[in-house]
């Protein structure tokens, strides 16, 4: 029972947008049940609204064209004695009924879609806590067995076909969790806990982005979502449980000392080392992630150098200070971070 309602919109978008690309961060997606239902509902609304719009335009054009017809004098009607056209009076009633019926239909469609989305996501099998911060995402995978709990940042890994409940919190201002290819938005509000349940249906990599204005770097608060097969997902989880290895190479070793005992450890944690602060993103498997600084740039050695040396010029206003590393310190820190696979 695969309904491909996204297809017409997709066609329209490609036609009008004139571009083809991967649906990496787009509502034209069939990667989740909820988004498929969104697309069906959107098409229903679009069709009905287009019909109404065409009717209005037709009436407008008819009114304009009729003026050229002979027999309608361009004289001022006396307001007291003006009799409106009986045809128009019937038309008004019909139009009112049409608008009313259309709206009732749309409201019913909307309400039933809403209910069915809510029930599709009723039995979550995995629980994740997502805490938003200015301007990054703190992610904890919860487990009944506390030794299995893992903490990571800015990259969400989800198993395909498994309903996942994500608990949404904020440490500072209001943010909004939005991965268009997988679901609609849900706000993260300080002092409240919201949640959202996702059921990803397609293996792939998706991009999400904060959707509520949250200050200076709202534009650069992205989130990568990696949907894996269940087996791959469990493997990833197992890997994340491993503490960071102590490096052997001298340069990386110097970096290890600097990161875990120096200024970095004031905010960051690396599991298996003395660094255990929770103010900033967890770095234990930092180098295994796809991007740096909440989607600002792809993970690469060059970008890592740039970010560690001067985070303020790459994401001005973010809460990681530029600490003025000496060149040898910078080499060491980058070398160490690259071992955190």
């Amino acid at each position, binding site marked *: 029972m695969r309904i491909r309602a996204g297809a017409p919109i997709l066609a329209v978008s490609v036609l009008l947008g004139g*571009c083809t690309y991967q649906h990496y961060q787009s509502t034209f997606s069939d990667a989740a049940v909820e988004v498929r239902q969104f697309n069906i509902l959107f098409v229903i609304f679009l069709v009905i609204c287009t019909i109404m719009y065409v009717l209005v335009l037709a*009436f407008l054009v008819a009114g304009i064209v009729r003026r050229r017809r002979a027999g309608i004098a361009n004289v*001022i009607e006396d307001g*007291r004695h003006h009799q409106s*056209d009986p045809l128009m009076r019937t038309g008004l009633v019909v139009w009112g009924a049409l608008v009313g019926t259309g709206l009732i239909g749309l409201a019913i469609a909307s309400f039933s879609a809403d209910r069915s989305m809510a029930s599709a996501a009723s039995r979550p099998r995995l629980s994740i806590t997502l805490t938003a911060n200015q301007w990054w995402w703190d992610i904890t995978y919860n487990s009944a067995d506390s030794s299995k709990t893992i903490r990571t940042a800015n990259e969400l890994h989800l198993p395909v076909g498994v309903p996942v409940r994500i608990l949404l919190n904020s440490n500072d201002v209001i943010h909004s969790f939005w991965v268009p290819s997988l679901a609609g938005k849900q706000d993260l509000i300080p002092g409240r806990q919201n949640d959202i349940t996702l059921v990803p249906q397609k293996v792939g990599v998706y991009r999400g982005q904060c959707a509520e*204005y949250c200050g200076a770097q*709202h534009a650069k608060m992205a989130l990568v979502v990696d949907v894996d097969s269940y087996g791959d997902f469990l493997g990833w989880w197992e890997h994340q449980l491993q503490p960071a290895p102590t490096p052997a190479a001298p340069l990386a070793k110097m970096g290890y000392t600097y990161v875990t005992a120096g200024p970095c450890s004031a905010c960051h944690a690396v599991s298996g080392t003395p660094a255990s602060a929770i103010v900033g993103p967890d770095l234990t498997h930092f180098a295994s992630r796809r991007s740096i600084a909440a989607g600002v740039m792809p993970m690469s050695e060059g970008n890592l150098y740039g970010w560690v040396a001067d985070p303020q010029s790459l994401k001005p206003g973010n809460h990681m200070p530029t600490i003025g590393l000496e060149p040898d310190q910078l080499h060491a820190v980058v070398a160490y971070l690259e071992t955190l696979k």
Partner: protein
Amino acid sequence: MNEMTRVRKEDERLARERRKIVRDGPKLTGAELDARLERTWRRPPGILGWLATVDHKEIGRRYIVTALLFLAAGGVLALLMRIQLARPDSNLISAQRYNELFTMHGSTMMFLFAVPVMEGVAVYIIPLMLGTRSTAFPRLNAFSYYMYLFGGLLLWAAFMLNIGPDVGWFAYTPLSGPQFSPGKRADIWAQMITFTEVSALAAAVVLICTILKARAPGMTLARMPLFAWAMLVQAVMIIFAMPAIALCSGMLISDRLIGTNFYNASEHGDALLWQHLFWFFGHPEVYIIFLPATGFVSVITETFCRRPIFAYPVVVLALVSTGILAFGLWVHHMFATGLPRVGYGFYTAASMTVAIPTGLQIFCWLATMWEGRPRFDVPMLYVVGFIVTFVIGGLTGVIIASVPLDLQLHDTYFIVAHFHYVLIGGAVFPLLGILTYWYPKITGRMMSETLGKIGFWLIFLGFQLTFFPMHFSGLLGMPRRVYTYPAGLGLELPNLLSSIGAFIVAAAVALFVVNGLMSLYRGALAPPNPWGAASLEWATASPPPPYNFPHVPIVESRSPLWDHDGELPVVTGLRVDEKETLLTTVVAATPDMREPVPYPSLWPLIASVATAIFFISSIFSPWAVPVGVIPCAIALIAWFWPKELKRNPEPVIT
């Protein structure tokens, strides 16, 4: 005995007084009457007279010009944003500056352009349209303009001094609170709101009282022009909507200034409280802008189709029901905040219901065109542009009223497209049309038809090019309020098109301004009723004299100028040697009493300067509140100091 003598002497004095009083009437009319009324109603010359004026036409003109200047300023900010967004990963404008730009753009357009320009047009035209000599409370009217001006200057001076707000025009807490917005940027925003609240409330009181009490005799509620109905509903909405924002911005200021914790979740405040209060104001605000524009559309459609608007009662009921429904749907701005999901159904239904009165109104305008024989001069072109554009915005509004759809579309460029279709298509197009239409009334000259037509097509097409692609940017995942976006998401083309379109729109607005300025000197002299309209504002000279009408007209139908070929019947007996106007009853508009009209005064200006000092200094210290109210109190006491009450003879209205 003494008592009787006193009474007789008093009666004799009154009889002498009565003989001295000059009234308009069959014995006093024509040029003689005009000259004497001119002497009574003219304000003192010079800069002080200019500042002291209480003439609704001067105040209305200042309102319109000031609002158009803010439109231009806000438009420049929009262009800067479109330059930045023309390309992905652009670095022309920093994140901080961009955030200031969209905050200033939204705040300027909503609070300093859209609402005030509607007030300004109404303050100018409504008394003329209703056939009266002055607005109610003309000094309050002057006060309202000065408060608006000072609020606007505060915001823009702060922006120029680099302490302009950067929290968005909606200023959500806790981002705008003391912890996350240190400095004074958010306070400037909140205090600018206070200024515009005071100003809008004052203007609303002026308009409501004028519309209900100052209509020409015979202009029953059922004969009132639809624009007056629209302004009546709008002004009542202002009175109900503004207290909500006064409350929430006041609590924000007190959180920031004296450390209350209304919005601080960690001290048992609530971050969402802001959103409820803000949108309880913010959604009606949209209709506060839109309803006057529907009034413009009715005025233009009626005149250019030469037919009274089809189904007048339906249009009036549509205006009233839109005004009521507008207060029941604020939660549709909050579908993603995690409120109980089933409760959202109510707000979906309420939001969709608004489409019914609006749809009926559109039918009535189209039916008027169908029945009549429309002429397509520039104002009418704007009406057609309005229908073609606004209906798209209305229909996307139905789309985002649905919870599942809104959860995807909320806070994306789809919404940006939607509300620009509604606000530019629905309010700015009719505004440009009506400014062209009433330009000869205000200046005595016509605007150039050729430049007007070029301007219309430029703005109409430029608008579609700017905002239609934004629907796609939104569906492709572009959130609002981002200073840049990455390449590779398919956002490059729609954004480039939007940026090109924005410059076309800017060119069209510039052309409108050039046309307006050139026509001031070179425009053809306007005939008395250049468009062949039906309503009373065309029953007097253009531009109107300070007293508006030599004799107050009497109204016998909805289209007085169409129903009387020669002179309108008039009522006489108003004083000529004193400023006096005729008040009528609320529903039937039968003559009720003669009302003395205040003379020009500097006290409204002084009171607004004192209030401005009080508001601005309270950004910096709580002590400004107890200290700052003293000059305000002095100014208001002086303003309202009881005048010498002369026992005037009883009026005789013939």
